[in-house]
């Protein structure tokens, strides 16, 4: 039952700008003149040339009082305190781990800013430092919160809550950070039977909803039991839906993902990635989201 679908590439259709609530967005390409008015302050993604404010990246122009900046569609992650991120350990160093979080510089997770097995009020000893690789090793995925941002933009993380910690079995999808909508919570147990962590850095982790939530070991024991097929189907479908939403540049949050999941149900999981199916289900999702807003 080998299947192979080949097609000719189709030129991307010019997208009609849907009238977003709050009016049309001012979109610019690199080199576009944003304003000739000199009364504005130069923000990120802009530069001044010949007394004009010019965009240096492609994206939407945003204004905060006198400050003008361009929010890029495709960007690396710029950390902000309190963000939830998903990252991958790249290096184990003295008292710290280096974490890849899609930012310009590697993030750090200090040994002192994580919960160790055995309770919160535990003194960190020299043995802990020696056993760091037993807790987290290269390649491991973690969820964490941004504790502070250094002056050079590098991010320091912490996992001092039972919500955060090492991630077990599941699937990682990497998207542009600007497509993740900021919300109160980024941990969602979706009613379709799986959970997602929408990292602010564009790393999205899809995993089977854990049965019991009391993590006594502080999230250091990973469940290595095989995931049942029914859960896998949901996870694969969610993954493909997220990929579909991202290709069509839709914002990711729990409702959009769920609507897209429901729209995809008539199709087979592997068919979701076909361009015409992607377009169809994202259109349906977009329509439902508009209806929701009223």
């Amino acid at each position, binding site marked *: 039952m080998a299947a192979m679908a080949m097609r*000719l*590439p189709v*030129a991307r259709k010019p997208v009609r700008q849907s009238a977003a609530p709050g009016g049309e967005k001012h979109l610019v390409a690199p080199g576009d003149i944003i304003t000739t008015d000199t009364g504005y302050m130069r923000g990120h993604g802009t530069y001044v040339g010949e007394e004009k404010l010019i965009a240096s990246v492609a994206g939407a122009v945003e204004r905060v009082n006198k400050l003008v900046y361009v929010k890029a569609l495709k960007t690396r992650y710029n950390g902000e305190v309190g963000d939830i991120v998903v990252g991958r350990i790249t290096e184990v160093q003295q008292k710290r781990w280096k974490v890849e979080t899609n930012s310009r510089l590697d993030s750090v997770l200090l040994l002192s800013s994580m919960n160790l097995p055995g309770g919160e009020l535990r003194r960190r000893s020299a043995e802990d430092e020696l056993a760091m690789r037993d807790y987290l090793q290269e390649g491991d995925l973690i969820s964490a919160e941004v504790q502070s941002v250094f002056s050079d933009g590098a991010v320091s993380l912490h996992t001092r809550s039972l919500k955060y910690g090492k991630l077990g*079995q599941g699937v990682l999808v990497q998207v542009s950070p600007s497509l993740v909508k900021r919300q109160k919570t980024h941990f969602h147990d979706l009613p379709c039977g799986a959970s997602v962590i929408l990292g602010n850095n564009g790393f999205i982790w899809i995993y089977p909803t854990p049965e019991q939530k009391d993590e006594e070991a502080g999230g250091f024991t990973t469940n290595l039991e095989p995931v049942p097929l029914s859960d896998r189907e949901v996870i694969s479908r969610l993954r*493909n839906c997220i990929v579909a939403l991202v290709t069509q540049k839709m914002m990711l949050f729990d409702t959009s993902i769920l609507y897209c999941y429901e729209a995809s149900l008539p199709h087979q999981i592997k068919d979701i990635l076909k361009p015409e199916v992607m377009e169809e289900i994202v259109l349906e999702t977009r329509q439902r989201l508009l209806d929701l807003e009223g």
Partner: protein
Amino acid sequence: MASVVLSEAEKLYIVHGVQEDLRVDGRGCEDYRCAEVETDVVSNTSGSARVKLGHTDILVGVKAEMGTPKLEKPDEGYLEFFVDCSANATPEFEGRGGEELGTEIANTLYRIFSSESCVDLKSLCINPREHCWVLYVDVLLLECGGNLFDAISIAVKAALFNTRIPKVRVLEDEEGSKEIELSDDPYDCIRLNVDEVPCIVTLSKIGYRHVVDATLQEEACSLASLLISVTSKGALTCMKKVGKGSLDPESIFEMMETGKRVGKSLHTSLQKILDEEESLGTTRQKVGFLG
């Protein structure tokens, strides 16, 4: 080669998924990702093709140049392969980083095309012992997303299908000096018969099973894989094992059978799409690199 680091739990998830015939992106073990094929994308080549297979992006250009035949085969033209691993694909290829992989791929292509029946090399001969066409096949890796070999072989076949070599005639005057005359009509050209050109099918062993068209993540979970080249009739022409792991003889046979089956359907769909593109002719809107 470009590779990703995965945690143990992620690997386990992929391996269990393969055993249940449901891969991370919903495919079964014998399914390819959706591929996009376009030919005639580079105007200053004799033939070119671009293939996108998931995140893998390959550009192949074929350039026909006149040269002298090789001594041992005076009445045949020949093919030259060169693979360029662009640092656009992954920063690891920067400088000389991609050279090793490039040579490996080029050598594999030489081996596959070494068979007599593959391309009719006699048709590339202009003048025995003196002139023949040399086809320089240049492969450019634009993006690596797993399963490089299959994508490259598809692109090479598509580019050879697209290749048009101008017709030349050899004129001989009384004194015996020869002159080569090029036809005035730019559409007067010969084309290659690519029916017998094989494609590579890579089968990666993951856990107890094998998968075709592995993604980068799946490649990280596989210890050994088998490259086999299959013709459109399902004949196996070449085989190579890659990776540091070992393979059981029994599973090699299983993989060969799967490879032949998958290879046949690969050829059918490739030929179908090439014919479709050809039938559209000049009415087709070219997408190229802006799509």
